[in-house]
């Protein structure tokens, strides 16, 4: 295993992968508890529009992706709280709409298909030093905010109305939460791709929930499963020349299946 760490690009890949695993699993635990799993998929596709714009306009795609994901998250949250729309339908509209826009933008640009492909399915081995710095700065801020408000977010996930009546600023925290999720998703699509990031957020948390432990233990297990999934996925990817995003997702899927079978009644 150690010889693969001799390559600079693998060192960057492991560093980025582990940071993303940490971010995706902690935010993913709240995403699952709040039944926002579809939200993560939708924001990943919205981020893709940002990537497409970035590729065409010549800006750093990750920055525009962060901006687009945040914009969509706020718009979705606004629509959900101000209109009596079915929230899963709102997500479905955004998901397919965003994907369609991204595809159109890229097809107009013509020559950028390969780059977009790497953002769809992830390209952890192409992670640059600049990407790592961006992931660490924004990921660090997101993680600090998530942990700062974790007890409030946990209460809201348990019962939003009771949390509100106890004096917690539910509306503000809901907006903050979707913003953090949007940022983490936009940062992650370089590593696992927009089609697969939802899985890295949701599956470690769902796996951890099978063990029926308290909140802190569930979150720690989700982090452990995500990091295990990323490391083993990257090893498979390296030794068998497979796409990294897909092998990471299959690894967390294997962990989920194991957790499900190990805890069946």
């Amino acid at each position, binding site marked *: 295993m150690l010889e693969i760490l001799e390559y600079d690009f693998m060192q960057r890949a492991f560093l980025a992968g582990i940071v993303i695993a940490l971010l995706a699993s902690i935010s993913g635990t709240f995403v699952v508890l709040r039944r926002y799993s579809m939200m993560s998929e939708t924001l990943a596709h919205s981020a893709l529009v940002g990537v497409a714009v970035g590729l065409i306009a010549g800006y750093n795609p990750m920055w525009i992706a962060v901006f687009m994901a945040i914009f969509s998250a706020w718009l979705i949250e606004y629509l959900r709280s101000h209109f009596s729309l079915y929230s899963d339908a709102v997500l479905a509209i955004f998901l397919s709409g965003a994907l369609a826009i991204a595809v159109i933008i890229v097809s107009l640009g013509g020559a950028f298909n390969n780059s977009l492909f790497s953002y769809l399915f992830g390209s952890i081995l192409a992670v640059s030093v600049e990407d790592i710095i961006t992931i660490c700065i924004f990921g660090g801020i997101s993680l600090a905010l998530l942990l700062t408000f974790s007890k409030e977010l946990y209460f809201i996930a*348990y*019962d939003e109305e009771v949390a509100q*009546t*106890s*004096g917690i600023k539910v509306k503000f925290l809901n907006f903050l939460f979707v913003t953090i999720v949007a940022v983490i998703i936009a940062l992650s699509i370089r590593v696992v791709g927009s089609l697969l990031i939802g899985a890295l957020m949701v599956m470690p948390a769902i796996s951890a929930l099978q063990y*029926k432990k*308290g909140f802190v233990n569930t979150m720690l297990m989700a982090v452990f499963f995500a990091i295990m999934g990323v490391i083993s996925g990257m090893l498979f990817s390296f030794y068998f020349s497979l796409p990294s995003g897909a092998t990471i997702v299959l690894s967390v899927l294997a962990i989920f299946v194991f957790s499900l079978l190990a805890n069946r009644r």
Partner: protein
Amino acid sequence: MNFKAAIFDVKNLNFVSKGHKILTNISFEIFQAEYIAIIGPNGGGKTTLIRMLLGLSKPTSGEIKLYGKKMSHFKRWDKIGYVPQRASLVDAAFPATVEDIVNMGRTSKRKLFSKKTKEDIEAVESAMAKMDVTHLRDRMVGELSGGQRQRAMIARALASRPEILILDEPNTGVDTISQNRFYELLRKLNKEEKITIVFITHDVGVIADDIARLFTINEKIQICNNPSEALSCEEMSKLYGIEAHLVCNHKHGH
């Protein structure tokens, strides 16, 4: 001078939803250490009223004051503990031990970045002891019986050391023995801890001797100041229709 300040002061409250009058001209006051039961038929507006008292929905017209302050200016929500209707029907997969749940009651009291204080720990321990769930602290809420879950939820509400406890029929899925134990706990909280209790229930016969006043809500409000005598079957039948027989039987069996 025997002056008691009202915790809730509700004046001329109206609530209209999609052209239907849900609540009409509701006025009342609730005072410190009172035990109020609220009854009324399903769809009669009980839960709507409670939601407005908690600031979860806004009245179409009228005014609610809490501790003398307008709703929009009231900040001390930690003084109010709320146990909703679905309290005993918690999602079985939710990753929470009884202690996790009771700790939630301290969330709004704790400052950002601060660790649990001695007061936080004491409040949680004392809430668990009062509700007799200390021995269940490490159990997952999904594994508890209906009655145990209900006690855990009230312990959560008590952990913020509220002065008023609002309970919206938290009895769903709870057996009779647990219910009776629950009524006894509410009585103790009211008599010994002087906690004001506002309790929406269908089961008013059993607690008739504990409560100070009975509010019947069916679009309009009727306030009964002597509930243990006034609960005649005729009145209940008028309010409930056929459901009254069940309520009256409880009363007679008590």
